[in-house]
């Protein structure tokens, strides 16, 4: 597995961290890069299997997606919904200003 080329470098780690809103200490970045490359290398073994005649699969259970009828059966539980919010006011979640 390790004879595969490394595909993750530190700039990639920085980018994924930013997209995931994770603050990663500078000192951990090299270790993380190695870990990610190892994981990707491990998964890359799957490429050795010939899948040219196999449809991509989104589920392995063989079950069908259950459907529900269009009825209002839930809601009106503002207190429960807001219970874990660090801050709320007149029924709203209150968060630091996010404006684009």
């Amino acid at each position, binding site marked *: 597995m390790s004879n595969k080329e490394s595909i993750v470098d530190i700039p990639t780690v920085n980018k994924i961290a930013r997209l995931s809103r994770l603050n990663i200490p500078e000192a951990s970045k090299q270790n993380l890069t190695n870990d990610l490359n190892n994981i990707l290398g491990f998964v890359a073994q799957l490429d050795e299997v010939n899948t040219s005649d196999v449809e991509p699969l989104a589920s392995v259970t063989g079950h069908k*997606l259950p459907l*529900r009828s*269009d009825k*209002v059966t*839930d809601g009106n539980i503002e207190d429960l*919904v807001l219970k874990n919010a660090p801050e709320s006011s007149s029924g709203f979640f209150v*968060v*630091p200003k996010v404006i684009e």
Partner: protein
Amino acid sequence: MNESINLKPGQINGETGIWEMVIGLEIHAQISSKSKLFSGAAASFGAEANSNVSLVDAAMPGMLPVINEFCVEQAVKTGLALNAKINNVSIFDRKNYFYADLPQGYQISQFTKPIVGEGEIIIDLDDGLQTIIGIERLHLEQDAGKSLHDQHPSKSYIDLNRTGVALMEIVSKPDIRSPQEAGAYVKKIRSILRYVGACDGNMEEGSLRADCNVSVRKSGEEFGTRCEIKNLNSVRFIIQAIQSEAERQVEILEEGGNINQETRLFDTSTGETRSMRSKEDAHDYRYFPDPDLLPLEFSDSWVQKIRETLPELPDLLKKRLVNDFGITPYDASILVEEKDYVDFYQKAANGKDGKLTANWMITELFGALKKENISLSNSPISPEKLGQLIALISDGTISGKIAKDVFAEMMKSKKSPSNIVKEKGLEQVSDDTEILKLIDKVISENEDKVKDYLGGKDKLFGFFVGQVMKLSQGKANPGIVNKLLKEKL
């Protein structure tokens, strides 16, 4: 710059020549369901903050989404109305991004395998021409919540009532070439959605919103880099935003610059677009199949059942109106815009002159209703009464000119046209002897003009007609006046 060039809509005459626009639209239509796409909370508009929220919508750990069957049906029904391919197997994916009004941290959408594939619709342009616009796909997805930024100086307020409400995203091919075509496309999609009943099409309440992808190129060249203008909620704004964005791009390109592929917002107060997100992170959504949801599957026979519930759609209805009532395709395209219009028209025109009815409905009735800001469903003039008015014109009881006065009275008093005509003594005078009396009077009062006319001033004929009409207070039958005047002179 050559000022004399006749530009077509969607063309921009720059310093270096003529540019054309390439436009693709993504329309987000809220499905008219009672509950949300994956939860049983109500999907209604205007409730108390966070009251239409279930623990699924709030993304509490361990909650699982279960899909709403009605929403699936509406997507299929719309797909059929768009002449599109229905995919019997489709997959839900997670579209990942961070925003305060998206508690899951991802939107459940469909990426690789949407429920509806390629289709096409016909759009009607103002000049009576038609164009075909391709549909790329239609997929089901969740709406996000609502952020209020004006409640507090340093905080945003979040309401999740809209979170998880079912949307259909309808993506066009980049076939649109002018802001006007884009407007016509949105109108057509809106009309189809309303006929089908999948979406109420209410743009003010946000049930229908559009993102516009705009690029420019010289005719025949490859597509340029595009920018996406987000969240436009009126046809007028769509037209303005596309025009201003295309002009901005032409200016940059002609100065030797490059277009950055980015998301932009339309500022309705300035009429211009401005950059919204940095290009770097835009569209890096890390889609992957949602492990909480199995593939959505249904049979051909289920699709067939839905097909059987489709109403008569605007394009076919339009053809039928042209055939059955002899009206112009352009008038027909206006009448089929809304189901209400067609129903009204068919009642009014029943057994009447179809063309005349269409003219009166589109010009007079729509004009009067617009002026008073009344919807057709609340029109003081019923279809039957409009039909009676048309009959009075057709059988010569009143002239077209008098009919306008009767119409104005009908708007006010709700009386039937025949009553108004009787009460006010407005019947058209078609009796030869009565009209001859008027003609004699006009001739005797204008002997000098008669001499001029006989001396070769043919144009004076109109003057005599006018005088006779005036003397009759508009009630003389103009056809008979013409005929008798000619004989008399």
